[in-house]
């Protein structure tokens, strides 16, 4: 078997982070291919249950990325997301889920470089955290 490569799911808002990831592409900034992006209108769309589903489905890490505070296309969506996931993040950590597995970031449409850097770091961190064996659905 080849070396283990982490699988990461990214929930990206359409207006900032997805566009930022597009910009990383247009600028040809290289980053590791471990992330699978799910496009959503807003970080406020992300239901905490999506995160649980990702983790139980074998994702080694989950990232939510939205607009910087104040830049939300819908003016307030990321405020709600921030509050919601502050609670979830603390709860997951309390229940023993490695905090590296669930992260959040603000990436604007102009931050292609930040996106590339972020993914690179994220992949590195999750490699260190190792495969998500504990939480994942057993395939027996």
């Amino acid at each position: 078997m080849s070396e283990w490569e982490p699988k990461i799911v990214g929930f990206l808002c359409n207006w900032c982070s997805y566009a930022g990831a597009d910009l990383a592409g247009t600028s040809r900034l290289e980053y590791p291919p471990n992330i699978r992006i799910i496009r959503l209108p807003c970080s406020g769309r992300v239901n905490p249950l999506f995160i649980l589903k990702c983790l139980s489905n074998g994702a080694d890490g989950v990232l939510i990325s939205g607009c910087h505070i104040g830049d939300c296309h819908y003016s307030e969506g990321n405020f709600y997301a921030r509050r919601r996931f502050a609670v979830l993040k603390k709860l997951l950590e309390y229940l023993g889920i490695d905090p590296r597995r669930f992260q959040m970031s603000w990436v604007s449409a102009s931050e292609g470089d930040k996106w590339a850097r972020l993914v690179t770091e994220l992949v590195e961190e999750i490699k260190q955290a190792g495969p998500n064996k504990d939480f994942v659905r057993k395939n027996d």
Partner: protein
Amino acid sequence: MKIGVFVCHCGTNIAGTVDVERVSQAASKFPKVKHSASYKYMCSNPGQNLVKDAIKKHKLDRIVIASCSPSLHEKTFRKCVEAAGINPYLIEMANIREHCSWVHKDREKATQKAIELTRLAVSKVSRNKPLEKTYTTIEKKVLIIGGGISGIQAAIDIAFANYPAVIVEREPSIGGRMARFDKTFPTLDCAACILTPKMVTVSQSEHVTMHTYSEIEEVSGFVGNFTVKIRKKARSVDINKCTGCGACYNKCPVKVPSEFDMGLGKRKAIYTPFPQAVPNVPVIDRENCLYFKTKKCGICKKICTVGAIDYDMKDEVIEEKFGAIIVATGFNQFDHSVYGEYGYGKHKDMITGLHFERMVNSSGPTGGKIIRPSDGKEVRDVVFIQCVGSRDEQKGLPYCSRLCCMYTAKHALLLREHNKDSQAYVFYIDIRAAGKNYEEFVKKVQDEYGAIYLRGRVSRIFEKGGKLIVRGADTLSGAQIEIKADLVVLATGLVAQKDAPSLAQMLHIPYDKNNLFTEAHPKLAPVETITSGIFLTGACQSPKDIPDTVATASAASVKALGLMVQDKLAREPLIASVNQDLCSGCLACLKACPFSAIEEDEIEDRKLRRKRTVAKVREAVCTGCGNCTAVCRMAAIDLEGFTNTQIMEEVETL
């Protein structure tokens, strides 16, 4: 279900890194995929034809395009499949260029990722539903809140396009702040000379209705269909009968300070704010009117030959429908009493810029004479203090009010013009004169009109020997300065109207911490708000001078007219919807909607055999952000195009 997958080479943009053929082959084995193909440029005409032909040939009913970012070509392919008879919302795009081929170098890994991205798109599209755009009618009428220069300009622009506009102004006359100005920088046109014709144009336009002495009471509805309640305050003068002869206010025995003249002059209890008022119909100030206070007097009624005086007139609330709303409520003056060191209120010979405007105006309370309010003597040495309130986070406003530098320069110029012996001293922090011919104007005031500019703050003002001693520092020379002034003029900053927050709440538009209304996007949508159909103009959004105000007024008008010319308003169907069976009616969604797009609804629950409250989406208002879906514990509210089922399917496919 028959899904077709089309993989784009994008020349070598994708194919250079990704083995497109392998992606196409792998896709053909995905569940429900009946056909897959690749092509050099999928977005080109031949590429699109390839898609259309395949749809017909293989009876495909859902399409995945693996190519570039959906922000580039989602619309293209929606149109393309629609032409081939598939609902345009039954496509998904896999972004294998920006998110794959352009950011990865390893061909094997990039190909593998492209396959997985395509698989995600296939799984999502398998859960897509056909959606239809919805259409709403548009009320072909624009409401303009505020009858200052910006509201007037907007009304003129709308009327020019032959659409009806309604101005609601709370003062008895339109004209706003500009009507009080004397001359305007940097060209020194007389404000009245350029404003009055516009006021007349508005009053004479068949397309413009004015509700002066009126206020907005309630706003409901959504773009294209706003319902607005307007309170027409009792004017006590019948606007249809009054001829504007002026006999009533000439004979009225009660004199009170004139608001229009900033208290420098007097008006009567029945009055028009200024001679050029539009409409030229007086209003009775019931608080001061003798008739209302004592039930005696009644002179105006006796004298009025047309019987226009109506003491029994009551407030009237009218309801009108509008397709768009332009907010032009302007600004207020900063309350400078917080600057104790200036002693405002203590010193009679200290006034604000707006007082100065009235004083210098030849039709103003002093007949154009610049005098000391304390003794009526003409002034010689005048100190102007800039940035009163502005750029002072501690005591005042964090922002620059933008026009004070210019109007102070104008005042200095007018001072010398009125009195050759006078001397203007200007205390400033920075001179901000970024506008066409602005810098030149300031320079002219300094060079040709001898105004002395001193960089620094004033630390104290006190009276001595009938003069105001202004003590301050000139930071350029480092010297302490003391000026014996006849008059001190404060360049107070511009702030939002006091009731701006309550209006914003009525309109469901956001406002910032300074109570200024917030535009939808600071750069790309400066006159829009996040509530579609509501536009901003003038100083209610941020301090603006007249040219900027007029420009935004025209911009807002164009936006409103853009709505007016539509037959129907097409709305993207990618909005939230409620499954009322699952809804508990807790209304967490309603409280979390940034757009007030959710309302309470009452349904008859057949199972419980009783009425119960549930949430309902106001489709025309919903912008599709999906915040509601994430706060709904019972997953009763979902977002079309990004449904829970679609997203969970994507995650499942990982």
